[in-house]
């Protein structure tokens, strides 16, 4: 390109040479008369020559200017083509599809890669409904909501959804865009890009599945450790039922039978049976392998549920559990089984810490409170011998355990669960002895998800 520029400059030189030569000729022809310096005389006598000279002078300038302009155009054109090429290359490499939705006309313009992403046939004109129809039925409503929200709030649009390809393949797509509005604020266009994130999503789902499996395995292992206490938990209502029923048989054999007593017995049997059923339900929930849908949860209720489950075990370990649960906490969004598992692990850890220490009293305290406006904190505090300050962080690593029979997975899996819920889990030593394990969870906002 630079050589082009030089050659343009050289082309202009002959024009200049011609102009200077014409001027010199005119000078000699004019002779001494010109020495008067009278311009008027010059114009009168050499009118055509002067015009000729001016034209000759202007012509190369003109040519020169035109050449420069042409060069600029050509450069801009090349740059545009390069830029487009680069863009297409990047878009293709990233499987990026570009689209513009003309809202007033309800027409969607898409690039070819974009058509491929959504499985649209070539050269078919598209509208908003066609776009929604290409999505997985479960994602249509939430995507529509996200777009409307972006247009009303005049915010960036960002959404992830599944697209069913004509051949039945499922693609995960992330779309990002921005609205353009007229002076009255009415949306005119929504313009943006879509990208195939199937691989990322699959990796994420894979990690999630591994985490769930690991969580399940450790949960079952924990419950195995607790089996004696859990059997006791079931045994109590069974004992009551058996004794009540046998007492009833004896009362029935008496004459006259004490009907009032029998009625009370039957009522108690029903109640104890329900209680046994509750224990089984609680256990079954924790043994469950499949994922529980995330839902808005009352953390206090989660903690109370675990407390009931651990009641017998704690009594057998002579551990006294104190619950200090803040009233009217906002809900958190999460998997109830996994969060129960975290609380279970933390309480068991605390109880173990108390058992290995010779401290008295063996008190375990679980407290909930608002950490700040957006998070809730749960703290499990024991009066044991605390954690070696150098191990405050490493206790969360897998296979690190201080228990002789421990697998070393309890705290590691708890941390991964809390992190997956958008929270944090950490340990501190109490100034007056013992350790506290804290975890935070974000306050649930179901409507914004």
């Amino acid at each position, binding site marked *: 390109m630079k050589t082009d520029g030089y050659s343009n400059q050289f082309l202009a030189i002959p024009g200049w040479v011609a102009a200077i030569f014409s001027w010199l000729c005119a000078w000699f022809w004019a002779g001494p008369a010109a020495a008067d310096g009278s311009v008027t005389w010059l114009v009168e006598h050499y009118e055509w020559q002067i015009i000729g000279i001016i034209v000759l002078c202007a012509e190369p300038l003109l040519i020169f200017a035109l050449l420069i302009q042409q060069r600029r155009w050509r450069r801009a054109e090349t740059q545009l083509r390069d830029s487009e090429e680069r863009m297409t290359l990047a878009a293709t490499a990233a499987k990026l599809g570009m689209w513009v939705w003309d809202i007033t006309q309800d027409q969607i313009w898409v690039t070819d890669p974009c058509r491929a992403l959504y499985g649209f046939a070539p050269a078919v004109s598209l509208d908003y409904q066609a776009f929604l129809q290409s999505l997985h039925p479960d994602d249509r409503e939430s995507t529509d909501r996200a777009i409307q929200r972006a247009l009303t709030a005049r915010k960036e649009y960002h959404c992830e959804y599944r697209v069913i390809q004509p051949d039945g393949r499922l693609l995960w797509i992330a779309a990002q865009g921005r609205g353009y509005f007229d002076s009255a604020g009415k949306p005119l266009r929504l313009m943006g890009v879509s990208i195939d994130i199937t691989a990322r999503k699959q990796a994420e789902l894979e990690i999630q599945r591994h985490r769930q499996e690991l969580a399940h395995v450790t949960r079952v292992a924990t419950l195995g450790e607790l089996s004696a206490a859990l*059997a006791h938990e079931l045994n109590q209502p*069974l004992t009551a039922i058996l*004794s009540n029923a046998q007492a009833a048989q004896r009362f029935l054999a008496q004459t006259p039978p004490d009907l009032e*007593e029998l009625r009370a017995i039957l009522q108690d049997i029903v109640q104890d049976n329900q209680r046994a059923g509750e224990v089984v339900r609680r256990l079954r929930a924790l043994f469950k392998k499949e994922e529980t849908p995330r839902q808005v949860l009352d953390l206090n209720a989660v903690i109370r549920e675990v407390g009931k489950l651990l009641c*017998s075990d704690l*009594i057998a370990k*002579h551990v006294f559990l104190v619950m200090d649960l803040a009233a009217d906490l906002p809900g958190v969004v999460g998997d109830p089984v996994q969060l129960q598992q975290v609380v279970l692990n933390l309480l068991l850890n605390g109880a173990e810490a108390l058992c290995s220490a010779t401290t008295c009293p063996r008190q375990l305290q679980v407290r909930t409170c608002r950490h700040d406006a957006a998070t809730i904190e749960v703290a499990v505090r024991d009066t044991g011998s605390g954690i070696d300050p150098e191990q405050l962080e490493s206790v969360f690593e897998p296979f690190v355990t201080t228990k002789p029979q421990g697998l070393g997975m309890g705290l590691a899996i708890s941390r991964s669960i809390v992190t997956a819920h958008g929270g944090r889990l950490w340990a501190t030593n109490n100034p007056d002895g013992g350790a506290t394990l804290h975890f935070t969870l974000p306050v649930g906002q179901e409507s914004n998800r």
Partner: protein
Amino acid sequence: MTTVPTVFIVDDDAAVLTSLARLVRSAGYHAVTFSSAGEFLDRVTADTPGCLVLDVHLPELSGLDLQQALATAGQSLPIIFLTGYGDIPMSVRAIKAGAVDFLTKPCNDKDLLMAIQQALVQDQQARQAQADVADIQQRLATLTPREREVLALVIAGQLNKQIAAALGASEQTIKTHRGRVMEKLQVASLADLVRLAEKGGIAPAAAPRQVN
């Protein structure tokens, strides 16, 4: 003393407590319930006859702790242990410390009631034995020091002549003392006297130097 024996039941689970009490009452016993070992210690005095049905796993003071506390206090109330998950060392410890039985929950009415019956018989026998000892001691208290000396020598198998020599008295005097001892202790034969003295905790005197 009431004619109906009392069965004391300690369990921290209200439902279990109520049902056990019903079962005990259905068998015609008097049932008194406690939700903790501490409550039992506070409310029950030694002179109530009966037996104790005790859960091993209690918060704070455990069943085994209560057994120990009762033994330390000198109370001989027979104990039947109940447990949801008893291990062998625990049951061995309980039985060694004098428990009547160690039953696993949920327990059959027959097993429990039989254990209760056995415990009540044991309690009654123990109380009878205690009463007998008290009675004998009361009788022994009526003896004079001299008569006690004679008694100790008699049960050591000494003849009147030997006793007289040992105590420096005439054989006739010893005979009179001996007759009065038999009378005061309300026994008819030497064999009865020996048995009673043994129950009353009177040790036979060391054999005095033989007089040839």
